[in-house]
Each structure stands twice: as C-alpha cells, then as structure tokens.
C-alpha cells in the first residue's frame, strides 16, 4: 500500500481515538470534581492537573493559563487554541486526512467522520460555557463510536483497515498509560494509600463502564494499586494497555503476512518487547515504584513504535500537501 | 590567443538539513569557432555522480542528485580554454535591415524573434525603443552596433539594484541594472525590430584589473549576411578573447548556471566566486 495512504489512514484513526478518549476523560473528570476530596478545593491537584498531563503538556498549559481548574482545563481540552491536541484540533485533522484518502474509505465511514467533524460546527465554544461539558462530550463520543462501528462493519480487513487498527490501539495504549501515570502519582502524594476517594477512582477509570468492568474482575479491592493493575494489565478489557499493545502487535503481524510491511520490521520488534514487559509485570506482585518505572518504559516504547513506523513504513514522506498544491492541482488542464 | 584558466565556485548554505536535491549545471564551455577547450571539470560537494547531456540549444548540461541530508552545497566548474578574438567585420559588410523581412529568416530564427520569459517589448520597453535614434540606413550591422551603444547609455550598471527575477519593464523604468538586465533589454529591442537575438552566459576575463574575473551575460544577434555576431551592451567593445562562452538560449531562463529543486529549509545564502586568469602560452 502507498506509504502516504497508510500514514494518512493511521493518523485518521489515531486522531479520532484521541478525540474520543479526551472527551471521555473530560466527562469523567467533570463528575469527579463535583464530589469527595476534589470538591473541597483539591480539585485542581486531584482532577484537573492530571487531566492536563494526559491531554497535553503541563508546561505549555501553564504558558497560557495560571492554574488548572474547572474553567481553564475544559477549555484547554475541548477548543484550546494553544493545544494542538484539543478535541477540536484532533477532529479537524482526522477529517482532513480522511478526506484526502476518501476513495480508500467506504462512503459511510467517510460520511461518519465528516459528520463527527460537522458536530464541532454546532458547538461554538460559548455553548459549552452555557450548557456545560457533558452534552458536548457525549456528542463527540457518540459520533466517534458510530464511525468505529461503521469501520468494524463495512471495511474489508485489508492493509488500510490494519493501519487504522494500528493507529487506534497505539493511541489508546498510550493514553491509558498516561492516565495511570497521572492519577497514580497524584494519588500517592496525597493521603495514605488506604484512604481511597471513590470520586477519584471514577476519574481514573475514565467512565462508568470501566468501573463496571473492573468490578467484575475484582470487586473487593478498591485501591490505586488494583485499579492501576487493571488498567495496565487486564488482558480482556479493551482499554487496558496490555490489550491494546496486543492489538498493535497483531496488526503488525497481519500486515507482514499481507506483505504490506517487510518481514521482521522494527515496529514489530518493539511491540513484542513491550508485550514482554507487560507479561513480566503481570507475573510479579504489583505496586510500588516499579509501576512508575514500567509506565515510563512503556510510554517510551509507544513513542518508539510510532517513530519506527514513520521511518520504515511511512518513509517519512515529508510534509503533508504543501501549501498551494491544491490550487496548482486544480489548474491542471485536462484537455 | 590567450589560454584562460577559469574557476567558478558556487556555495549554497541552507538554514538546516536539506535533502532530495536534484540539479542541473550549465557551466561547461564547449568548443566553437572562437574557443577551444583544453580541459574542463565539474565537481560537487557532497560528492555525486554527474550525468552529462546536451540541451536543445547545444549547451553542455550536468545533472546530479543528492538524496541525503546536507547543509552546504558546493558546485565548482573549472576549465582551461584557448580563446580567439571575435571577428570584427566593418559596418559596411552584412546586409540591409530590409532583409529581416525575408520569410526564410523569420522562419529559421522564429524562436529568437518571439517574446520569451524575460524578454518582452510592450509599455516602457517600446517607449524606450521609440526614443532611441538609431541609424537604419547603413545596414543591419551598424544598426545593431548602434543599439549596443544606446543600451549601454540607457542603463547605468548598478549591482544590487535588480534581482534575477526583476521584470524588464522595471529595469527600463529605473534605468539601472546589471549585465543580465542589459542583455535582456538589448535582445528585446533587437527582436522588436525583427532581428533575431539570443542570450549568452559565460565568463569574462578582466586583464590588468585587480579583480578575479566575472560571470557575465552578453548578446548574439543574427545579422543578415554575417550570421551570429556577438555584442556586449555592458562593455560595448568587441566580444574578444576575454570572453569564454558557457551557454546560449532565448534568455536567462534557458541558461541558469545552476537550477534544481530540493526539500528542506530556505536557502540562507548563496556565494558565487569566479576567477579567470591567463596562463603562460
């Protein structure tokens, strides 16, 4: 498959996943901030700062905002102009990319992505201030699930589909890992490990569904350790880092089997070692500073996989369409 | 018949790593009636294989590609050329201006009679042409030599006032330019009158002056009865043995010393140094 098309599909899926994750986490943070420890003035540290860490970069956030609170962070995450990974920015990019490879996507999938983007038009930032964050996040999540469903139902499992799968799950792995990293650090600084605030767990799990899934596995122990273990290592929960990295590895293997990637490519080696790290961690007792260590190594590994893909697979095809290309292309005479 | 040793070095600096660079060099002199090339060599840095071909105007072209990242590109051409003075026929030789109307002349030299990228003769160029008082009664050669002198008078040689892409109309309006501009103007006024004219790029030896040498542009006009005669509106003296021809075309666009394309940051700077000296016989 053309390197450019593969890269474009990869990013279409990745940006869409990023937008959905952020919408979900924003929604969860919003409810977490209303209860328990967080509502007593500790919201900034317990809820909003960690969200900034997951969604972007604390340093660049602090360049334009004085502190992380219930006003600045939602803005930053949804439409923040200073945030290249805001929900709006991600949807924009995803749609632009999808449009450029429109003839490689089933019509319905393209239309679904286009509709998701069109939702943004109905949501001027002022409306979020007025109506709050929930309706917006819910809309974004629903549109993105629709696209996901269309992809699952109507796309042939060819190279294009595999690259989208790769992008989606690599993004999800990274996002989950960062989530644990942010929350875990926040939690262990504060009150003792036995004192667990239900509100903050919910924020850590991201949403009610995750909470329910967790309860199926381990209802008794509600601790940062067990929660983080669940999010990192559960082999069945589709948002766990282990699950996602497994999908990444499978996608790469399938691509190699389709001759869409050269045998034993660098990304595959990296994905396998990531899996090894996870499996090793699963066999040992969980907790303490090793968790932080593992998180850092896994996050680094995710970045490396992305870089290896860019170099070997997408053959770093320089910039996207340089400015002016559309105008020039439209003027070509077809006599 | 001097033996001239010329060296032309172009250095291009990029504001960061550049790559995927593909280029064409037109800096290799060829043998013709007025010069014989004893030896010539082109090299580039970073090193690259040079592929040679001859273009539509008979110019020697070297093509090369640099894939990998580099921040500096050096192109160097060196040659030893034996030159002879151009013939200087008396004004009475050659034909009449009326012979420019000969359909065979027009058909043969059509591409040097029509406007080209840098050469147009509307507006200010036409006005300048009308204002010049050139003698049409003493033959085509006298006419074009007169034009040569007039262009020299009309434009003050000034470096830095114009750029490679400065339109000819601006040159005329401002009255300043360099050899490229003066050559284009002379070509425009020749073509306007119906005389075929073309652009020559080359090296100029400056004997006795304490300067290394020069990249230069001058003109060739098809004078009825005599063929292509070299003229230089920048120094209206016979294009003699101090001139080494590199390439010829309709105008500058056909003969850039270096053209190409690359992917990367802007060009920070470009330096060209030309050095021409006479060797012992």
């Amino acid at each position, binding site marked *: *498959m*053309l*390197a*450019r098309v*593969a890269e474009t599909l990869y990013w279409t899926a990745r940006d869409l996943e990023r937008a959905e994750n952020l919408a979900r986490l924003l929604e969860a943070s919003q409810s977490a901030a209303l209860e328990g420890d967080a509502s007593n003035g500790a919201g900034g540290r317990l809820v909003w700062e960690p969200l900034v860490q997951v969604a972007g970069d604390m340093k660049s956030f602090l360049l334009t905002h004085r502190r992380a609170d219930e006003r600045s962070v939602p803005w930053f995450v949804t439409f923040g102009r200073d945030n290249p990974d805001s929900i709006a920015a991600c949807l924009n990019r995803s749609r632009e990319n999808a*449009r*450029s490879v*429109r*003839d490689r996507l089933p019509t319905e999938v393209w239309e679904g992505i286009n509709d998701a983007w069109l939702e943004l038009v109905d949501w001027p930032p002022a409306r979020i201030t007025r109506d709050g964050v929930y309706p917006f996040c819910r809309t974004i999540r629903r549109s993105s699930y629709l696209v996901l469903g269309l992809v699952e139902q109507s796309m042939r499992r060819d*190279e294009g589909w595999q*690259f989208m799968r790769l992008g989606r799950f690599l993004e999800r792995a990274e996002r989950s890992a960062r989530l644990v990293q942010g929350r875990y650090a926040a939690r262990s600084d504060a009150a003792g490990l036995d004192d667990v605030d239900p509100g903050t767990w919910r924020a850590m799990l991201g949403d009610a569904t995750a909470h329910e899934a967790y309860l199926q596995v381990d209802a008794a122990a509600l601790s940062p350790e067990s929660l983080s273990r669940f999010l990192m290592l559960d082999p069945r929960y589709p948002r766990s880092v282990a699950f996602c990295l497994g999908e990444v590895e499978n996608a790469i293997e399938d*691509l190699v089997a389709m*001759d*869409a*990637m*050269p045998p034993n490519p660098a990304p595959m080696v990296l994905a396998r070692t990531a899996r090894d790290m996870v499996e090793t961690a699963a066999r040992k007792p969980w907790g303490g500073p090793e968790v932080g260590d593992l998180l850092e190594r896994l996050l680094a590994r995710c970045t490396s996989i992305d870089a290896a893909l860019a170099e070997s*697979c*997408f*053959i770093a*095809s*320089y910039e996207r*369409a*340089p400015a*002016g*290309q*559309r*105008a*020039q*292309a*439209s003027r*070509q*005479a*077809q*006599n | 018949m001097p033996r001239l040793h010329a060296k032309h070095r172009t250095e291009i600096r990029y504001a960061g790593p550049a790559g*995927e660079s*593909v*280029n*064409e060099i037109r800096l290799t002199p060829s043998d013709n009636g007025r010069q014989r090339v004893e030896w010539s060599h082109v090299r580039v840095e970073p090193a690259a294989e040079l*592929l040679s*071909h*001859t*273009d*539509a*105007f008979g110019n020697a072209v070297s*093509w090369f*590609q640099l*894939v990998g990242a580099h921040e500096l590109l050096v192109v160097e051409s060196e040659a030893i050329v034996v030159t002879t003075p151009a013939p200087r026929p008396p004004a009475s030789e050659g034909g009449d201006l009326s012979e420019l109307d000969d359909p065979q002349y*027009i*058909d*043969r030299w*059509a*591409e040097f009679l*029509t*406007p080209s990228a840098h050469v147009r003769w509307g507006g200010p160029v036409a006005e300048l042409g009308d204002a010049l008082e050139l003698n049409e009664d003493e033959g085509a050669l006298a006419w074009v030599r007169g034009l040569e002198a007039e262009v020299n008078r009309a434009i003050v040689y000034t470096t830095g006032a114009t750029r490679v892409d400065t339109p000819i109309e601006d040159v005329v309006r401002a009255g300043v330019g360099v050899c490229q501009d003066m050559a284009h103007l002379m070509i425009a006024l020749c073509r306007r009158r119906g005389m075929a004219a073309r652009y020559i790029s080359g090296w100029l030896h400056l004997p006795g002056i304490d300067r290394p040498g020069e990249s230069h542009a001058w003109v060739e006009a098809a004078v009825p009865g005599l063929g292509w005669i070299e003229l230089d509106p920048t120094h209206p003296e016979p294009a003699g043995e101090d001139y080494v021809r590199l390439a010829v075309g309709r105008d500058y666009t*056909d003969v850039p010393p270096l*053209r*190409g*394309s*690359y992917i990367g940051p802007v060009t920070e700077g470009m330096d060209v140094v030309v050095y021409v000296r006479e060797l012992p016989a």
Partner: protein
Amino acid sequence: MTFGERGIPLPLFTDYEVDGFFDEMFEGPDQPRETYRRLYSGLSRLRPSTFAARSALVDRAYLTQGITFDHGGREQPFPFDLLPRLIPADEWTHLDAGLAQRVRALDRFVADFYGPRRAVADGVVPNGLVSTCEGYLRAMVGVEPPLGRFVHVAGIDLVRDDDGVWRVLEDNLRCPSGLSYVVQNRAFMRRAFPEAFGDHHVEPVGHAPFLLLSALMSAAPEGRESPRVVVLTPGPANAAYYEHAFLAQQMGVPLVEGRDLAVRDRRVYLRTTAGRERVDVIYRRIDDGFLDPASLRSDSLLGLSGLMQACRDGNVAVCNAMGTGVADDKAVYAYVPDIIRYFLEEEPILEQVPTYLLGRDEDRAYVLANMERLVVKAVDGAGGYGLLIGPHATPGERQAFAKRVRENPRGYIAQETVRLSRAPVLVGERFRARHVDLRPFVVYGERPVVVPGGLTRVALRDGSLVVNSSQGGGSKDTWVLSA
C-alpha cells in the same frame, strides 16, 4: 409493418425541429434515418413520462456515486442524456481507419520533431511554427522514449457538418479526458434502457480500461518482465480526479501523486509500506511543465524531481510522453494532412475543417475581411486568448478581436464555421435538437486501437455550439452498431 417508418409522429418528438441542420436521427420531420428506425419504434412503446423518469434516475445515480465534474468550484454530475447516439458499422469503419491513421502520423511527427527533424528540413511544417509552439518542451530534444513512441492515448474531436461529412475539429494528445464517461455512460444505459440493447447489436466499450492498460504496458522500457504501471494524478483538487481514480481502479493499478514517487539512480520508485517498488510506466494526468520541478517548472508542487533524467536514461515510460503538445497545437493542425502524407505516404482518410493561419498574409487578409462568418481561435499560449464565433458575435466584439489578431497574428487561427450536426436531447418531457460533437479515444499500444464510439458531447443550451464539460455541456452514450 415497421412502426415509425414513415411519418408516424411520437409524442416525445412533438415540435421537434430539424431546422436545416444535419440531424443525427432524423432525415425530416418524424422521419428517422434508417440507422435509427428501430430505436424510434422502440421509443414508441414508452410513455414520455417513463423516459423522463428513467432519465431522472440516471441523474441521481450519477450524483450518488459521486461521478461529477468540478464545474467552477461546485461538484456537479456531468449531465447525461439517455437517448444514445448511433453510428452504423460502415461509417465507423471509415472513422476507425481515419483515426488510427491520424494518430500514427502524429506520433511519428512528434518523434521526428524531438529527434532528426526531417519533416522540418523537408519543408513539410515550417520550423517557425513548431519551434514557437507552447507545447514545445525543449527538455525533450534528443530524448527518446521507449520504443520511440510518444503518443499512447489520444482524444480526437470530430464534428459533422450540414452535409453529414465527418471532420476532425481538434486533436488532444496531452491529457485527453472523458474515457471514464464512455465506460460509465454505457453502464448506466444498460440499467436504464435495457430494452434498447435487445433491438441492436452494439459494440462493447467496457473493455476500454483494459485496452488502455495493455497499451501502457506495451510502452514499458524493454526488458521489463511485468511492467508496473501507475496513474499519476495532480490530486483530488483537480476537476477530473474522479476519472483518474476510476481508470486506476478499473486497470487495477495504483493511483499516485508526485510525492508518492521517488527517483533513485535515475529510476522511478513507488513509496510503499513494504519498501520501494520500481515503476516502469507512468500514465500521467499532469501538464508537461509540472512533471519535474528540478528540470522544468521549479514552482511545481505536483511532480517528481529527477523524472526528466529517468526518461533520458530510458528507465521509465511517461504516457503520453512529455512534449506531445507540438502536435495538438491549433496552428499545426493545418499541416496535419501533409504530415500524414509525409510520414505514412497515404492520403488522409479524414477530412478537416478548412483552416486559415493568420501568420500567413493571404490568410490573414481573408479572415479580417470575413470575420462575421468565421470562428477565430487562440492558439494556446502564443499570447492569444479567447474564441470568437463570428456569426454569434457583435460587431464590437469582432472589432476587438481583429485588433488582437493584428497585434499577434501567430497567436490565432481561423476556421469556417461548421454547422454542427444536432441530435435529440430530452428537455423536460420532449426531445429538442441540440448540437453535438464526438470524441473518440484512440489507444496506441503496439498499434492504434479506437474505442468504439467515444464520448458524444452535447451543447445543452439551445443554439449553443459549446460542448465541453467545463462550460456546462453534457454527454450521450455512443453506439457503434455491428454490421
């Protein structure tokens, strides 16, 4: 009794006027030509509203499938008229032979011009004319494409005058467009009007993409076992992008943009996720100058640096080769009959439209004296612009044009106004006569093959002679009937 044989009127054709033009379908009022009698009688079995309803269905199908042409920034379906245009077998034999001959000669001419230039030396075409063509690409001088072939796909525009004589109006040898419509129109016809096919033996056109692919593969440099072909498009912003994508998909080859390709060691490669793959043939839909920013237009964002040298080294075939514009220049058109005689030593089979070269004194004098009867056209890029249809222009417009001609005679040619033939086109629930032309496609692999029929283009406005898609024309399916 054969329905519709003699003056039995059909409601669909109420008030249809032949009006002194050559009508493709009718000899006289309600009198279809022999070729069209079965079609006419078939129509008699349909209610007018049925025909209109089927037309509407086809329009919607075009829109849903996104088969559009970018018309001034808006995507619109290319209007399609459901009544086919018929060409009987014997007429087609003549056209087929004439088109193949013409394309063969033009290819030889281009190859000769970038090579030994014998035609110019022998006075067949004046040097002055060809060397000042906008399509003259100097970088191609001395470059020999594989097998010496320059032209691989041609669209030759034909018209019929009011005596019913077929004439070549214009050659298109650079990026001729419309082949996808030929194939798609036929597919839609089958669905919308199946009963008509039962009454006729129609030469198929569905294999046209295969013919194109064969021609492209045979253009590959020698020694390449299974040549890799790609379609090079300027991208989705181009008006004809739909066609580029369609043809690539039908031929089963990748659709690529300039940035998907790379030159290494003067060979062309495709950037794929599995590494670089060699490319042997490029079916390019990008204008000459934009193909190589290193050697040609340095401002091009669409091409591939190094392509020119890869061509020079014979490592890739560009189809159509760069530089073919010298042969489809409107001024060179006047010399094509002589070109055919010189290169093929045959008499031209197809007639042309009598053409005057305004660079020639006698021609110019005649044209300036008769502008109200003639069509004056700018020769691309020789500084001319526009089109004057003498009989339709005001005296003011003619004067303004005459001034331009006097200032730049090389920039213009003039032709007698051809009273283009007309064909019935559905307007509302009735047929009305509209002017049509025909663009057959010639695919030239080892030998020229003409796709049966071609694109019949329709000027949708009453009285208009302008048929091309960018200015609001439409099309019809064209049926070549087997003997």
